[in-house]
């Protein structure tokens, strides 16, 4: 009836789920990356305290060329976009030299389409 946890619920949460210092779990953060192609004025704040674990965006990339199962909430457009390009990269990886994407697509090129 009330939005806050009851004292019993709070006790269960505190016992089962609350992260204690002793769990040794660090704060996590995404890597801050500078823009290469734009003169980037943003200062990247170097956080030097120990207990931050910087996540790696590439660690699991070999798994990211197909969608993993979802429950009730589907993958976002961006996610599907990323997965599909990783899949295409996987397919192209084994091409040597000639690129079928290139040769097929160039048949449609109209010079007057190019600014």
């Amino acid at each position, binding site marked *: 009836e009330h939005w806050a946890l009851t004292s019993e619920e709070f006790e269960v949460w505190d016992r089962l789920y609350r992260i204690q210092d002793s769990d040794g779990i660090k704060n996590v953060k995404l*890597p801050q*990356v500078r*823009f*290469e*192609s*734009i003169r980037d004025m943003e200062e990247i704040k170097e956080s030097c305290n120990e207990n931050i674990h910087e996540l790696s*965006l*590439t660690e699991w*990339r070999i798994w*990211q060329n197909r969608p993993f199962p979802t429950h009730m909430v589907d993958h976002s457009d961006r996610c599907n976009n*990323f997965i599909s*390009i*990783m899949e295409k*990269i996987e397919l*192209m*990886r084994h091409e040597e030299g000639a690129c079928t994407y290139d040769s097929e697509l160039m048949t449609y090129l109209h010079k007057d389409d190019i600014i």
Partner: protein
Amino acid sequence: VQEAVARAARQAKSEDLPTVDLEHLEKVLPQL
């Protein structure tokens, strides 16, 4: 595009390789 290309090129350079390959692009893609 400029950002993807610049980051992939930097990735290849950081590995002292003369050619930007799909592996380099793959490594920078998540940042994009």
